[in-house]
């Protein structure tokens, strides 16, 4: 079981959360002028890495707030947790 540190509530068990997919996906602006290819990429193309992945999570059964998690899809290691609007932590390799 993962122990996630909700930025609002503190450490909570995994079942209280839902992973809501990749974070930092920017909507093309102005949307009306985006090409079909740009729009399709925005909707469907994800990085799907084996390793560190920027994700959005929601504390569904707690405070219900959304936040960002930098997590390894390979080892489940959680490298960083930060609130929406806070800068994206850079990867150190």
């Amino acid at each position: 079981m993962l122990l996630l540190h909700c930025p609002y509530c503190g450490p909570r068990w995994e079942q209280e959360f839902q992973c809501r997919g990749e974070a930092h996906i920017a909507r093309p602006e102005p949307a009306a002028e985006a090409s079909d290819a740009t729009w399709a990429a925005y909707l469907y193309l994800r990085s799907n890495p084996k390793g560190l992945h920027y994700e959005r999570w929601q504390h569904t059964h707690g405070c219900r707030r959304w936040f960002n998690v930098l997590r390894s899809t390979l080892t489940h290691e959680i490298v960083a947790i930060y609130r929406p609007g806070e800068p994206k932590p850079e990867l150190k390799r």
Partner: protein
Amino acid sequence: MSWHYPRQSPLAHLHLAVRATTAEAPVWLCERPPASLAIVRGDADDAGFRAGVERAFGLALPLVAGTSTGQAERCLLWLGPDEWLIRGPDGADLTGRLGQELGDVLHQRVAISDARALIGLGGERAREVLSKGCGLDLHPSLFRPGACTQTLLGRVGVLLHALPADRPQFDLYVARSYADYLWHWLADAASEFGCAIREGG
């Protein structure tokens, strides 16, 4: 022709009043009497919002995650960084009071009295009962009297409030439609310790 249905508590069908005892038991359960409940959302950094809520109920807005102010029957519970639950006496017009005091201050208020069932749980082994279906660390040094949190218990979402009392005592707020399930889950989890049904008051 109009029909007048009698108001029933969410667990009325269990006839708890006739099964209630005053016997000492390691765990006890009750259905709390009806209460007035409301949710208020607003900006905790807005002094006008904090002052308005405080004027409406005479209780300070709890700003620290997982804390509450007031007592069991009259309290403000932290739900999120901009969201609180208010509990007052049955019939109290909580949203009306909020509207009066908050006026033009940006906020949202929703009456939810009949959307929730209130179950009381107590006794020396009450924490062990909760721990059977909840991954929270419920040790009294962490989940102290006055603490409150939304979490999962026996797979359903509940709001758990550790009452400010000398002996372990909790109020559980659960969606009305889950009340029967949660009651039976609790009674089953408590049966190995010995469980008494109490009058709710």
